[in-house]
């Protein structure tokens, strides 16, 4: 499958990756190789095969709805670069 240069740029936007102009053709050919492999996988007949939810057998254990965690806020916030009035501070992102 062939990609256009714009496809690569758009993927960069979605993946939040800055792709340098000079590397676009390299990234493009490598992604095309990946897609080639995907094409190959898609030829496998999976019509009657149940999708695998998990490689392990068994089911999810459930826990009681009881508080088991203490407030370790101090310890956690020590790991953060920037904390103010209990909030973690990050560069502004507004969506």
């Amino acid at each position, binding site marked *: 499958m062939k990609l256009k240069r714009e496809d690569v740029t758009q993927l960069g936007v979605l993946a939040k990756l800055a792709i340098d102009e000079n590397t676009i053709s390299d990234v493009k050919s490598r992604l095309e190789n990946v897609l080639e492999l995907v094409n190959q996988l898609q030829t496998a007949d999976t019509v009657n095969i149940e999708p695998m939810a998990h490689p392990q057998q068994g089911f999810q254990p459930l*826990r009681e*709805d009881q508080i088991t*965690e203490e*407030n370790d806020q101090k310890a956690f916030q020590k790991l953060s670069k*920037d904390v103010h*009035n209990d*909030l*973690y501070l990050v560069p502004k992102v507004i*969506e």
Partner: protein
Amino acid sequence: MRWDTVIGLEIHVQLLTVTKIFSGASTLFGAKPNSQACAVDLAMPGTLPVLNSKAVDHAIMLGLAINAEIPTISVFERKNYFYPDLPKGYQTTQLERPVIGKGKIPIVLEDGTIKEIRIHHAHLEEDAGKSLHSGDFDSDLSGIDLNRAGIPLIEIVTEPDLSSATEAVIFAKKLHSLVTSLGICDGRMAEGSLRFDVNVSVRPNGTNELGTRTETKNLNSFKFMEEAILLEVDRQIDILENGGSVIQETRLYNGETKTGYSMRSKEEANDYRYFPCPDLLPVAINKSYLKKIRKKLPELPDERSTRLVAEYGIGTSEANLLAATKEISEYFETVAITSENSNQAANWTLGELMSRLNTANLPIIESPVSAEELGVLIRRICDNTISGKIAKQVLDAIWKGEGTTDVIIKERGFKQLTDTKALNKIVTSVISDNPKMVSDFINADPQRRKKKLGGLMGQIMKRSKGQADPKRANDLLSHKLHEIINGESN
């Protein structure tokens, strides 16, 4: 040109649990920022999620209540996107195999007809944290509070079966009443316990093909939801009638400025790269589990409404209103039993009491007037101790904490004037002081006289400070007036 509106809803219901969906951290609302975000919620390396049984129980309760398909296996997946209030870089949610399949919720439209709204599915997921974009920190920073990260949600997705803002609001209220009656959500919309995303499109009247839709996210009041839909329908029709085309996009609505704006278009939309979460095994829901939950199902609003009609003989529309929440119907039932008059109990609960509660913005469980006290008040109307008009004054006094019904009636001399001799005195004086009204009555067409009586009755009530027994006073008044008429014609 005429247009049809097509609306589908996605509703996030915050499940009422003590702890988060995948960790044992508290979910209590209003705690100090980040004091309820544990290592699992913060996505510390090496942590693993363990599913909260209560969250699954609640989801199944909802499924049973809306007669939905409940598959034996459901699977959690990762929805990947980047945002600072999502520490793991993905939201643990469900996609291909949700916990609840197809179901339906009937709603009663304004004209009384019943419409079934199909539920596409409902799935369990975790909430994200909260970003604060202004505060006492640099304006180029955002503050992150992760207390909400990991709070259990159920997202309910409807088919596009709603055809107006009004229908959408009726449905939303029904759902609110359903989840609060089930006890799976506290229903506090201002705190974000129930949030609505509305998918809106329009198409030429009578056609079948769906138009391009937009999604307005995070509406947290019925009023905003209605406004946002009306505004969006208007906007889309404007675009189409001017030869443009609607862009598929995510929008937001600002309830204060009453404006909508675009958040992101499809081109910039995330590719979420869903895949089954390797940290969680499939969830098994077998027959005995379903049976156990079915036993726990409380009475639901529709059942309750039917029962109120059958047990108390009140009207269906009153019963529907009273049955909306468990608290209101319990209140009503106590009033009905204490007062021994179900219809008056329904009227006073829905009318005088509710309007006072709404004005004071109080839930019924915090009503300053207890159900027993309202019951006694109604009993005093029924046994002719006081009139309905005086009862409203007594209710106001009870509301202000000035005493009980009987104490207030006694202390303020509100007791209704039923003594014929005293009533006669008032009636006679009103007749002699209002010759114009009396002659109007006498000269009126006999069929229209009843209407003319009102003015004189008003004077009697005024003179008796509202305490005259209206029925007796009315009888005495018409009797006296007819005596005059007969006297004149003789």
